[in-house]
């Protein structure tokens, strides 16, 4: 199925009659990508389900104000990322725990989840990623899993390309170190 261009989506959204059609096209194009981005950050499927819907409701409410000063894709990503950060901060405040403890909680969720059937190395990879600080984890996920360019990540997070490169390389070294402590099974 041919992906519709972002410009076409925005053009249709600007017309009252075709607004719903435009949003349907937008969902078709981005919902899975955004879901997986959120899912890798919050681990639990039900939490990701709630957050992805909230993110797209915000996209709907604010799309008419989108000024094309960034790509539509990175703009949607930014909304989704902010929803995840807000969710994780609330989790931290609700349980009165530190961010490290939030990651520990996510690790436990991963271990207990029925919606994770990865092999040993894949589980090890996810647990290694959960040892990273929050922002570093976000950067790693976007670079490693979503193959986003540093420029695009910079648009999402508002961080310089140089800082992103440094953060990603530190994350790579740390995870590689964790993975190589155990004999990999492929």
């Amino acid at each position, binding site marked *: 199925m041919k992906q519709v261009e972002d410009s076409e989506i925005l053009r249709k959204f600007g017309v009252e009659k075709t607004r719903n059609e435009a*949003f349907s096209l937008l969902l078709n194009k981005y919902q899975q990508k955004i879901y997986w981005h959120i899912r890798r950050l919050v681990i639990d499927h039900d939490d990701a389900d709630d957050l992805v819907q909230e993110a797209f*409701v915000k996209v709907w409410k604010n799309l008419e104000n989108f000024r094309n000063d960034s790509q539509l894709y990175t703009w949607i990503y930014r909304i989704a990322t902010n929803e995840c950060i807000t969710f994780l901060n609330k989790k931290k405040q609700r349980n009165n725990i530190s961010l490290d403890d939030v990651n520990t909680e996510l690790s436990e969720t991963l271990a207990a989840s029925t*919606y994770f*059937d990865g092999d040993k190395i894949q589980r090890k990879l996810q647990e290694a990623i959960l040892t990273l600080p929050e922002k570093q984890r976000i950067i790693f996920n976007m670079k490693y899993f979503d193959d986003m*360019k540093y420029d695009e990540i910079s648009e999402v997070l508002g961080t310089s390309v140089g800082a992103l490169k440094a953060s990603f390389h530190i994350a790579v070294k740390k995870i590689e170190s964790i993975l190589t402590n155990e004999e990999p099974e492929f």
Partner: protein
Amino acid sequence: MNDEHMEWVAEAPVLAALHERSRKSTHGFLVPAAYFNTLKVQTEAQIALEKVRTASASNGFSTPDAYFSKLQAGILAQTINAAPQPKKLRLWHNDWVKYVSAACFVLLVATGLYLKQQSALKADQYAELASDAVLYNIDESVIIEHLKEDQKATHTVSQTEMENYILDHYSANELTNSL
């Protein structure tokens, strides 16, 4: 992107191998069956709810363009950004002012009462002086005449009473000698 990708591959071969192997997969994460088919429907339902919520919140009323941003600016201009008001000094800001005021009031009342009393006293004195002055201006002969008449009026006695008076107060020898 290839350059960016190659930057770290050499540093992390295990991670790179895992990346290649799992490129088309979900890296172990699962979703419920037909989840993405229903996700779109659920998201669109949420947006429909949001439309209803927004419409019902306004109850059909609308506002001018950019009203709420102007409203905020207006409120800020009258509150935290307002020009400082000149300090108003209260008349009764100190307790001693109250006490002095009360003392002055008491003094005024007392002075008023005293002056009233003095005024009444003087009025009595004037009245007495006035009656003396009236007496002083009356002719002496008129006064004597008045006294005589008064005496006459109050002293009407009978013959018997006179005789008894003379006999009670004068002896027989005195009467004989007088005669």
